[in-house]
């Protein structure tokens, strides 16, 4: 087996036994990245020198016998996550040259664990998009069919893992930006509970929805990554002060007696039959493994899309207001202070970012706040209550992730609403703040599909347990795209 096809757990075992070194792993992946980048464009910035330095340090640490579960494992980081001394662009021309003076908390945690950073991953500009086509530096392509999108906004993070350009990656998920690309690229992706992972150092898109989470090829690998990045951060006032469980310990393979709800509203009109079939087959298998399947209803699901497209743009319209070309980033010439600011923003932000800033500004503006923003926050309460009520009946939910498989590049770029519908099954989870795990569940038209498991707040362990049991009874995770 080629080195880049190892799982993190397998690589860990070989590193600890001294059969391979981190430097060897890192070199293999750097080679893989070089070979595939012209085709895939998963990375916006590669950091081979840093990676090799970290790999050498990791090898010494492993030799000294104090390796953590991730020491020496080469990983990639979505470019919306701030990295000290490594360019962080957020996929935007506005930040094309920004070299931050600090590390995001998740990056500090990875560094403490002794991981190897291969580079910064491509994404839709400021995490706004579902196809990666909104990257200002050119989109990433889907490793399973390079004429198709990898999903978004963490498209680079998903494609890199699927293609063996990283053993695992970090992404962020505001409305589905981890789960939808995980499904479209046939890998495992987790959006943790809001507050489980620190947001300090994630360049904010929508502050009340954003969460950072891992991608990998197996549930076990995702559990390892989550364990490392999760936990309370005094720099993030919204992070939960709760202990981080031993997630691997929950991967027992035994899911007997668990009640799994299937929300009828998630099988939306227009869902591709192949996707629905794959998801329903997966749910049947979960039943065969001893879980009880219960039909449930989350009646306010249909409002999630309009609620999301008020709250997320409103928050982003303020979060992105700081990009004025005064303290960092790029500044365009103009006739005076405000002319420069408005030219910089008007020309350097991409179309989707400008659209959402406009939409959010409008929704918050005087005279419209009550009709839009306030009402959206009230309906958000109703959506959240749907989930709170369903937890009295079931332990978790199983649903589709995306109504479609990966679509063709350019297919939806002219129709924002059609693109937004791509996230219809993932948005409600962010609005409720609960965790969502995507595991591959087979193929439709030779393209990957993903099963979405949705859990109670801070109960990632149950999602991982069910996801792992399902995964190990299938071989999807052993399949690799032919590149």
């Amino acid at each position, binding site marked *: 087996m080629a080195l880049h096809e190892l799982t993190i757990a397998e690589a860990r075992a070989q590193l600890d036994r001294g059969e391979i070194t981190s430097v060897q792993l890192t070199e293999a992946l750097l080679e893989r990245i070089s070979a595939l980048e012209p085709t895939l464009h998963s990375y916006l910035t590669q950091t081979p020198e840093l990676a090799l330095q970290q790999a050498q340090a990791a090898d010494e640490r492993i030799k000294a016998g104090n390796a953590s579960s991730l020491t020496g494992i080469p990983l990639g980081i979505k470019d919306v996550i701030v990295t000290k001394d490594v360019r*962080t662009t957020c996929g935007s021309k506005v930040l094309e040259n920004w070299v931050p003076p600090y590390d995001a908390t998740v990056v500090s945690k990875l560094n403490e664990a002794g991981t190897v950073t291969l580079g910064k991953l491509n994404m839709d500009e400021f995490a706004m998009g579902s196809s990666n086509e909104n990257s200002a530096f050119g989109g990433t392509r889907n490793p399973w069919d390079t004429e198709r999108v990898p999903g978004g906004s963490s498209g680079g993070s998903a494609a890199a893992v699927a293609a063996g350009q990283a053993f695992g990656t970090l992404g962020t998920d505001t409305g589905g930006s981890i789960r939808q690309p995980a499904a479209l690229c046939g890998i495992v992706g987790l959006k943790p509970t809001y507050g489980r992972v620190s947001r300090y150092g994630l360049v904010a898109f929508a502050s009340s929805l954003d969460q950072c989470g891992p991608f990998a090829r197996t549930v076990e690998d995702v559990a390892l990554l989550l364990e490392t990045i999760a936990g309370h951060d005094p720099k993030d006032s919204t992070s939960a002060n709760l202990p981080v469980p031993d997630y691997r310990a929950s991967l027992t393979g035994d899911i007997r007696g668990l009640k799994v709800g299937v929300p009828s509203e998630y099988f939306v009109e227009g869902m591709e039959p192949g996707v629905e079939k794959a998801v329903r087959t997966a749910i049947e298998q979960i039943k065969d493994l001893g879980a009880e399947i219960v039909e449930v209803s989350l009646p306010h699901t249909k409002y999630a899309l309009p609620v999301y497209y008020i709250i997320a743009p409103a928050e982003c319209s303020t979060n992105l207001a700081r990009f004025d070309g005064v303290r960092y980033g790029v500044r365009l010439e103009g006739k005076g202070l405000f002319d420069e600011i408005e030219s910089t923003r008007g020309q350097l932000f991409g179309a989707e970012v400008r659209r959402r800033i406009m939409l959010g500004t409008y929704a918050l503006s*005087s005279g419209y*706040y009550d009709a839009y923003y306030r009402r959206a926050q009230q309906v958000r309460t109703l959506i959240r209550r749907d989930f709170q009520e369903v937890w009295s009946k079931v332990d978790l939910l199983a649903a589709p992730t995306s109504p479609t498989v990966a679509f063709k590049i350019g297919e939806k770029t002219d129709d924002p609403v059609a693109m937004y519908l791509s996230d219809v099954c993932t948005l409600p989870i962010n609005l409720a703040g609960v965790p969502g795990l995507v595991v591959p569940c087979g193929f439709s038209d030779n393209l990957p599909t993903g099963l979405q498991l949705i859990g109670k707040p801070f109960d990632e362990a149950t999602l991982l347990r069910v996801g792992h049991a399902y995964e190990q009874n299938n071989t999807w995770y052993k399949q690799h795209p032919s590149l």
Partner: protein
Amino acid sequence: MKYTATIGLEVHAQILTKSKMFSGCNAAYASAPANSCIDEVSIGLPGTLPVVNQEAIRKAALLGLALNCEIPEYCEFSRKSYTYPDLPKAWQITMYDKPICINGELEITLGNGETKRVGITRAHLEEDTGMLQHGDETHSLVDYNRSGVPLLEIVSEPDMTTPEEARLYAIKLRQILVFLGVNSGNLEEGALRVDANVSIRPEGQKELGTKVEIKNMNSFRNLERALVYELERQEKIAREGGTIVQETRGWDDAAGITLSQRSKEHAHDYRYFPEPDLPPLELSREWVAERRAELPELPDAKFARYISEFGLSKQDAALLSGERETADYFETIVATAGASNAKPVANWITGELFRLIKDGEETLAEVAKRVTPANLTSLIEVVAKGEIGSTVAKQVFEEMYRSGEAPTEIINAKGLRQISDSSVLSQAARDAIAANPKVVADYKSGKLPAIKFLVGQVMRATKGQANPQVVEEALKTELDALN
């Protein structure tokens, strides 16, 4: 036609804390070089998040309680959006519809001795902005040292009707802010900033006139001057049948006028919404009770008590109660000297001590290390016992002020104790009588006041250490014995 003025004040007070409102960045920026008191949060770097400084919350509540405000059980921060280079995130974190203090009042004493209550609408916490400086003709320079310093905005009801009332209100508010240690009271450095809202209406009319906001008054005197000017300006417009425009005007100190800064047509739409990065504050009634218990006795209460309990004059009571340090010092000494000695204690502090401090370069805190409660009490006691006279006492006080030595030591070392020994004085009296036969003859012939001359001679001979009453008795005895 006569006009009635309506004046309300908005006071911005920087809260005295070590670190800034939302990060552990040094807040002591006043004399620091440009951009040397900054961190990632205070210059709004992408990815950073705010964390509330609990000391700012505590001090805001203390001020609110001192102003008889209600402290609501629930308060929250909001985002206030506007773009300007001194505001690094392009939104200010502030309290909007859920402030920490509401519905208070402040009593002021007018020049004619009458008191007046001014309502406090609200006081809320926010972050200060950076500062823009003039660079050259085409450029401005930005310094973010001030950015993020905790700020308390205190908004009065429009209850004031004269510039004098506004000045007295501002002075009184400053006194309380400084007394509580909430604010330095420094207007020149901008630690305390006063804006006024002022309108006029024909006497008898209920409906308020068009409101004009005045800024840039950096002293209480200028506040009064600006209001006097502005009222005259508005009355002139009204008398001439013109229209008063709703606008912001700046006080031009050199010219002694207010100048239009921006009219309301360009009014900002601040698009307030709850700050998603900060969980709300729930201020329990127990917490508020603890803050109330922490509240010191305030200047007004001290003033009244110093008069009723200690019998001080109004003037001394005012001098001793206005500042926390002075009041604490006075009360500490009274605690040692006893309430019955409060008057001499007050006399010593407001007389000799204030005179010497004024001439010197030390603060009261430094001087208090030498003029200790024990020392001043001892001085008062030796004077009361008649061991030294008032002239010598002043000499001893000054020596104590300089050296910190105990009064008894000073008296002993310098031999300043009053001579009351009648045998010593009898001899001195006889010497004076022998040396001044003419004066003695005058006395004998019935010019009784001539004895004062002889007392003076004895006092001179004893270097002022004799007790003048005892000297006079001794002289009388000797003179009577002459026959």
